[in-house]
């Protein structure tokens, strides 16, 4: 149970967002152990089952990257650099360890730097394959069991099937709550703003899972009971990208006169679409979800049929979001030096435009210094949508 609870609803979400790590520090003081991790690809169910509080490491767009450059090359994705810079600056001094997945080059090729520089009591690289065929799934299960054993050694207690199953249920409940939250975006105007929703989701990944679920639930209740009708805006936008752990960009979009009503982001829709199936061996369900059911460019899906069918397989979830949330335009918000997303831009753009939905492709550097340039582009995009 949390110590000094920061309240409920949007006020609490805002507090946990602004003072990211507040609750983790509290829990550490109470003797709990906090396991830091990067990216949506770390099976947080296993961290929770082992008795750790999973803590999603994030960067800070307002903080220029300084300390990181002495250890980490500047050609690394700026998000990862910022996360590392924050870690070096002591923002996450409460971490007992760090778990890093083989998500992409920027994440896995910096593993050594994280490991050796932060020198935490525990570190582990989960060597997740890119391929998603059956033999890759089996390999990944074996890797997850290696991780399970390793984490169990550090926890000084084997991770039981029972504790895993319990954790799986908790996270499935959590994702269901997130999906419920997203329903609030469907109306016109949406009942919840993009800024409010993203703040809530970011706050949530810094909290133990049950608290996170409660927080999201309290936000849903609060929003549903709101009396004021938000001012009308000119367009409904969807934002697609990798990790967006701050609201600077979404705030810019909403202040420019549009709603952000849909996304394919982390934390965001990407992480909440699929649950872990409750399988007899819980690792089976975990492996299946993490390798196959998260739609991110880092996962290589085999092509089974025509090129058109392949596009549907890879990007069909975007089409469904555009339809379900009645999206007018899509922003591809891609970090510079990002390979998994960078290689997909032409295809994504082409796919979305084939649905008669305009696309704005932005390459950004995870820093507030670019906000002026982005403002003009967003405004121009909205003018363009308005004149359709």
């Amino acid at each position, binding site marked *: 149970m949390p110590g000094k609870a920061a309240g409920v609803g949007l006020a609490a979400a805002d507090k946990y967002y602004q003072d990211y790590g507040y609750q983790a520090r509290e829990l550490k003081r109470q003797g709990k152990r906090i396991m830091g991790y990067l990216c949506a690809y770390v099976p947080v169910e296993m961290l929770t089952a082992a008795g750790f509080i999973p803590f999603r490491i994030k960067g800070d767009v307002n903080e220029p990257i300084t300390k990181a450059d002495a250890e980490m090359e500047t050609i690394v994705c700026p998000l990862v650099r910022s996360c590392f810079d924050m870690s070096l600056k002591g923002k996450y001094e409460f971490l007992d360890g760090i778990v890093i997945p*083989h998500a992409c080059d920027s994440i896995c*090729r910096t593993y*050594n730097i994280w490991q050796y520089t932060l020198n935490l009591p525990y570190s582990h690289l989960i060597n997740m394959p890119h391929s998603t065929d059956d*033999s890759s799934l089996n390999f990944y299960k074996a890797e997850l069991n290696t991780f399970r054993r390793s984490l169990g050694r550090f926890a000084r207690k084997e991770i039981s099937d029972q504790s895993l199953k319990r954790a799986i249920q908790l996270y499935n409940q959590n994702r269901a709550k997130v999906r419920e939250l997203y329903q609030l975006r469907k109306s016109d105007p949406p009942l919840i703003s993009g800024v409010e929703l993203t703040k809530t989701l970011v706050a949530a990944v810094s909290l133990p899972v049950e608290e996170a679920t409660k927080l999201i639930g309290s936000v849903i209740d609060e929003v549903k009971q709101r009396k004021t009708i938000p001012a009308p805006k000119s367009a409904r936008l969807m934002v697609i990208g990798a990790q967006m752990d701050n609201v600077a960009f979404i705030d810019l979009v909403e202040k420019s006169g549009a709603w952000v009503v849909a996304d394919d982001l982390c934390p965001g829709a990407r992480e909440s679409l699929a649950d872990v199936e409750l399988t007899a061996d819980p690792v089976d369900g975990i492996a299946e979800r993490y390798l196959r059911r998260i739609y991110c460019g880092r996962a*290589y899906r085999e*092509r089974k049929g025509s090129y058109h069918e*392949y596009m549907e397989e890879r990007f069909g979830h975007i089409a469904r979001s555009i339809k379900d949330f009645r999206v007018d335009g899509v922003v591809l918000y891609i970090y510079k030096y990002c390979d*998994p997303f960078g290689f997909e831009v*032409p295809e994504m753009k082409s796919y979305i435009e084939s649905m008669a939905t305009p696309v704005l492709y932005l390459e950004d550097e995870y820093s507030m210094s670019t906000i002026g340039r982005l403002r003009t582009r967003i405004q121009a995009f909205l003018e363009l949508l308005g004149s359709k």
Partner: protein
Amino acid sequence: MTQEKKPEKKPEKRRTATEAASRIGAMSKAMIASVLQAKEEGKPIAYTFICCCYDEIIRAMDIVPHWVENYAGICGAKRDAQRFLERAGAENFSRSLCTYALCGLGFDAWREELGEMPPNPPWGGQVRPNMMLGSGQILCDPRNKWYQAAQHYVPDVPVYEIGLPWPPYEYDYDYRQVQDYYVKYIVEQLRGLVEFLEKQTGRKMDWDRLSELVDLTDRTWNLIWETYELRRAVPSPMGTGDAMNTMVPIVFMMATQQAYDFFRELNDELRRKIANKEGEIPDEKYRLIWGGGLPSWFALTDFNYFNSKGAVFPVETTYRMVEAIYNFDIDLTKVTDPLEHIAWRWVKYWTYWYDKARKRPGSHPDVERLIQYIEDYKIDGIVMHEAFSCRTWHVGLIWQLNLLKKVYKNMPSLILESDIVDVSSYNEADTRARIDAFIDTLEAVKSKGR
């Protein structure tokens, strides 16, 4: 139709230290010509990446590889890559992505738009393949994104990907605890590849022939390793500049008799030079290691610049993608199934330095390799290259140097910054100024030692 930009003034040809290395240009050109020829003859052509375990497999099935990284390197070396990079940018690929991929994708997009090769393509151009063979390793995102992206331009060309991981180096367990399931996975992936290739070509794998090529590869690995070990001599007979040529048979011609014969000849030549006390340069002052990073293909003459200052490079980690098979901790000759043999060789290669790292507190296999070479080759300083478009091989260089300093000793080091193929990132005056400053440091350290 647009008038395409003419290539920049022809780059200076790099002087080689060995006669063998000087033959590589012609060999490389002949290799590209043979692919164009094979295309005309209707032979099956695959886009391939280096170091993906499938050399023996494709050679055994007479599939003709087109090495896309090589072609981009050639465009880079000829300083004729910009127009392809620009074309990729016009397709909305970020210019921060792997420039091998940008060059290849730009070329493919252009070729498909025209229905023929772009005008004046280097060495005849990059053919339209019958299939593309990617991989999902812990190495390199482009290896599982490039061909997928290329399908936007050649949607009818099938892609096959194989997973090729190796065990990470961790403190709390020995990699031998996991190596079995790694090998099992790799074997399954290779088997899947064989099935795919059989389906694509309508041919059946000749397993005996594959076993022969696996054996040839083992012998070639041993020969390459022994040959490179000859460079320990003082003066050193061959440098990294030449090795950036001799990498061609290692990574583009593995599992061919041609590669073995080439290294046989190089080995003989180095022995002759050592007997005559002939070094890379007559007056060897500083012995350096090229400790990481792919070279700037358009600026290989920088190695001659180093030479002009009395600096030689007896050893490098880049493209030295072999170890002597007989130095592994298992008897690989006992693994008779060819796919298992390949898989074990792969895992043992990538974990080769793990045991050494365990013996030195706080060390890491990458750094152990540097230390071994520094001692064996009597190295005075380290040069590395940070290519902006390649996160795979150019992230962790700073960390390696920091760790080397911490667990071994503080050595003069230099990190050059540029790119593999994008020449606009390169400034010759700036690079040479950095080299000059580094040479001064080496000299200062040397005089202190006297």
